[in-house]
């Protein structure tokens, strides 16, 4: 495996960057690297050249389990018929405050 020295031989990593304290990590992109430490260093060079981040996570892309776009509607359907989960569902008399 390592005899083929092309970068694509290396696993793909997803990069998440926290832009500043108080915000959550957000997906920034992906890159190839031989191991987690190199992935972190490459992510620093690639995604934070202009102080875009104060913290980076790298995750092997192969470890991400994603919902299928084909089942998008049935998968998310359970939330569609529960409007009572939203505050706007409830009628409150005029003049009632702080509610």
């Amino acid at each position, binding site marked *: 495996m*390592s*005899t*083929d020295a092309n970068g*694509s031989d290396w696993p793909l990593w997803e990069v998440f960057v926290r832009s500043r304290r108080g915000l959550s990590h957000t997906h920034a*992109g992906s890159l190839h690297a031989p191991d987690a430490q190199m992935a972190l260093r490459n992510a620093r060079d690639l995604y934070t050249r*202009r102080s875009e981040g104060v913290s980076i996570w790298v995750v092997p892309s192969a470890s991400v389990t994603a919902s*299928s*776009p084909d089942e998008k509607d049935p998968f998310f359907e359970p939330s569609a018929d529960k409007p009572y989960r939203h505050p706007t569902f409830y009628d409150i008399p005029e003049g009632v405050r702080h509610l």
Partner: protein
Amino acid sequence: MTTMAADAGAYEAVFDAALAADERIEPRDWMPDEYRTSLIRQIAQHAHSEIIGIQPEANWITRAPSLRRKAILMAKVQDEAGHGLYLYSAVETLGARREDLLDKLHTGRQKYSSIFNYPTLTWADVGAIGWLVDGAAITNQVPLCRCSYGPYARAMVRICKEESFHQRQGYELLLALSRGTEAQRAMAQDAVDRWWWPSLMMFGPPDDESAHSAQSMAWKIKRHSNDELRQRFVDICVPQAESLGLTLPDPELRWNEERGHYDFGPIDWAEFREVLRGNGPCNAQRISQRRRAHEEGAWVREAAAAYAAKHGEARS
């Protein structure tokens, strides 16, 4: 109609509806094969252009006239490498393998922008590239931030933010030369004279001769025609050249009150085709340098892979 054909029809309807509603297409969505192929071709060519584009400028790093200029140029070249990586990541979401794309670049089966086959003869060329070549690239790339394919559009947002520095440093460099000695001013003018027409060619052939334009517009990959973007670029550059105190090498360049645009002279498309065909001043040099850099980096990639294997890191 068979069930499979009916399914394909339904998928296509979902794809068409997403395009019509100006929604983005994402990697795991169904998409027509031609849409995927066309995007792979365009994004790969774009990625290749970024990394080949390093060469004409890196040529001047060791000879930059001051530490300030040298630091700026190194940062710019590092950005170009970064832009190539954003774009290779984007094209991989379509199922292309990076190794294959590099191989296609190295063997001439995929192209890069013809502009990078021109040589950088003087220091002023670094300024002309920043102002004109990056300026033309920005004009092309800003509409790509709204292109229908999500990962490409997101990569372009990052790239456009960074390109602005590239263009301004080039303009500032030319301004310093233009306000310098007579020899410096002449050097700046010579660079602009050589880079102006190739920069206009960066927008691609005229609309009626552009092979992929109509389909790309229908797929909302492309948002404006080649000629429209070229005109926009000319209109932007004329006043900028005046502020620089330099002229653009086109005797037919003049304001057209009726059109509300600058008229400009005919472009030498024969030259453009020759450079595309591989007969530009630096085509062979660019590819051989790229291959050499790739081969000379092999031991670094091997060492990193060996280290990772030894330490038992997760590998896919």
